């Protein structure tokens, strides 16, 4: 378990002070894939660097597996860092070393004997699926392969925690998915706790079970991924959630529909898991005298279940519509009225 309390980082510049990370407190459980999302400049990159003290915290405490990181001496910190793997947006491989030699680097740092090193490197190459590329130099590898080397290197000393600093941001969508699958796979296989920061909600949706949203150095919202997806509270969170659960720019189409003769209410319904399989809409149509227009629907798979979103237009008598909405509210997770022109 990782527990972070009142973590703060202030940069002292010549004329001003910049608070990059402002009083963050988080609990991360063992085996979690914990996502931190935010726009660029939100302080998430600084935050992840504070965890292994690549940046020195100004205040606060970080306890990893009961070990307080902020008070370690330089020598103790070097040893502690061997238990914390890290992967980077730009991979940061040594171009002068082959795949196998890059993976061997942290083992050399940990002073593992040569013959054991060779065996361990082979295991890691098998784990990340780089067989046949052992003797290639980074310049001969694709972006996805480079990140696989990065992951193998980060896992070499059997860390308990893996920090991912925008690990998929430089990759194309297909490669991103392949790398995310690999991270999910090692999380399950090795019981590794993963803390990843990203600006892509897709990454959170695909592999995280918990998420924190950062803005201006602070965590503005956090919780289970399903909870945050179905019930985002903060505006920034809503924007991020909209990226994956509904099509962006659908405002115009809503306006178009409302400008037609037939007014009514447009509501967005969120379902979780089994509710997505229940025939809520046909029940509503049977029970209430309303007409239902289905405008848009989407199912989003997260690791904790399926999240469904359905945008419908309800037409009819005001009371009937309101009763229908109450009925939907009781059956599903969340109902949001997005246009009301009765």
């Amino acid at each position: 378990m990782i527990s972070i309390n009142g973590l703060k980082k202030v940069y002292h510049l010549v004329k001003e002070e910049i608070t990059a990370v402002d009083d963050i407190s988080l609990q991360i459980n063992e085996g979690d894939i914990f996502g931190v999302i935010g726009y660029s400049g939100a302080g998430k990159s600084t935050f992840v660097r504070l965890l292994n003290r690549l940046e020195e915290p100004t205040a606060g405490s970080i306890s990893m597996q009961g070990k307080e990181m902020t008070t370690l001496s330089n020598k103790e910190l070097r040893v502690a860092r061997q238990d914390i793997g890290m992967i980077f947006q730009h991979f940061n491989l040594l171009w002068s070393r082959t795949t196998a030699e890059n993976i061997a680097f942290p083992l050399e740092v940990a002073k593992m004997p040569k013959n054991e090193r060779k065996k361990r490197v082979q295991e890691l190459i098998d784990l990340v699926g780089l067989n046949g590329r052992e003797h290639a130099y980074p310049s001969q590898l694709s972006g996805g392969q480079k990140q696989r080397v990065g992951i193998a290197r980060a896992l070499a000393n059997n860390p308990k925690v893996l920090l991912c600093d925008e690990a998929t941001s430089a990759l194309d969508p297909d490669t991103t998915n392949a790398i995310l699958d690999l991270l999910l796979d090692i999380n399950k296989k090795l019981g590794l706790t993963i803390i990843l920061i990203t600006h892509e909600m897709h990454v959170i949706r695909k592999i995280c079970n918990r998420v924190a949203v950062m803005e201006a150095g602070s965590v503005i919202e956090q919780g289970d991924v399903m909870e945050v997806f179905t019930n985002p509270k903060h505006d920034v969170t809503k924007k991020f959630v909209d990226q994956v659960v509904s099509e962006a720019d659908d405002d115009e189409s809503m306006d178009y529909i409302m400008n037609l003769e037939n007014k009514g209410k447009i509501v967005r319904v969120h379902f979780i898991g089994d509710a997505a399989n229940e025939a809520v809409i046909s029940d509503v149509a049977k029970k209430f005298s309303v007409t239902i227009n289905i405008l848009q629907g989407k199912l989003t798979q997260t690791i904790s279940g399926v999240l469904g979103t359905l945008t419908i237009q309800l037409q009819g008598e005001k009371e009937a519509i309101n009763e229908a909405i109450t009925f939907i509210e009781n059956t599903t997770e969340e109902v949001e009225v997005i246009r009301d022109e009765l």
Partner: protein
Amino acid sequence: MNFDLASIDWVKIWEATIETFYMTLISVAATFILGILLGLLLYLTDKNGLWQNKIINFITATFVNVFRAIPFIILILLLFPFTDFIVGTIRGPKAALPALIIGGAPFYARLVEIALKEVDKGVVEAAQSMGASLQRIIFKVLLPESMPALISGITVTAIALIGYTAMAGAIGAGGLGNYAYYAGFQRRAWDIVLVCTVIIVFIVFIFQVIGDLTAKRIDKR
């Protein structure tokens, strides 16, 4: 002017060539080591460096700048007492070495510093995140990752040093410069000057080719 290659004393030319090689190789080797040490010191103690230290940085930078600014011919003269103390004489190829090394190392140190600055900061950060000590970062990251630039740099420096050996020769250090000046120029024996020049140019070519091939071979980017 008449050229008569048959009258040239080839044994003397050969001895002078060996002396030039001797001075060049030893001074290049020493400059390589001393230059890397100074360059590392400049890089590491710089602002936001891995071993930030204003005082050491200032002292190193001053040393490098001062010795790089002194014209080589004057540097040799200034170093006469030092050379006499270290080598025991101020004549011959050995006596040229202190001046060659002290003239070459600061020049190379700046090239080393530039080469080290080109090393990706992210790679250094990655090594730190694995718990690597400063010593390991130097020997396993900084030097291997900057090696092609270090080799190109020492090639440029070696060629400058070959030029310096000729200059040192003119005031008594031996080698092809010495032979061209005393046996050639002062006796109006232009054929000797020509032969010495051709050999020096050839030596420069050899160093350039070896340097280029080595740098290319180890560059896996």
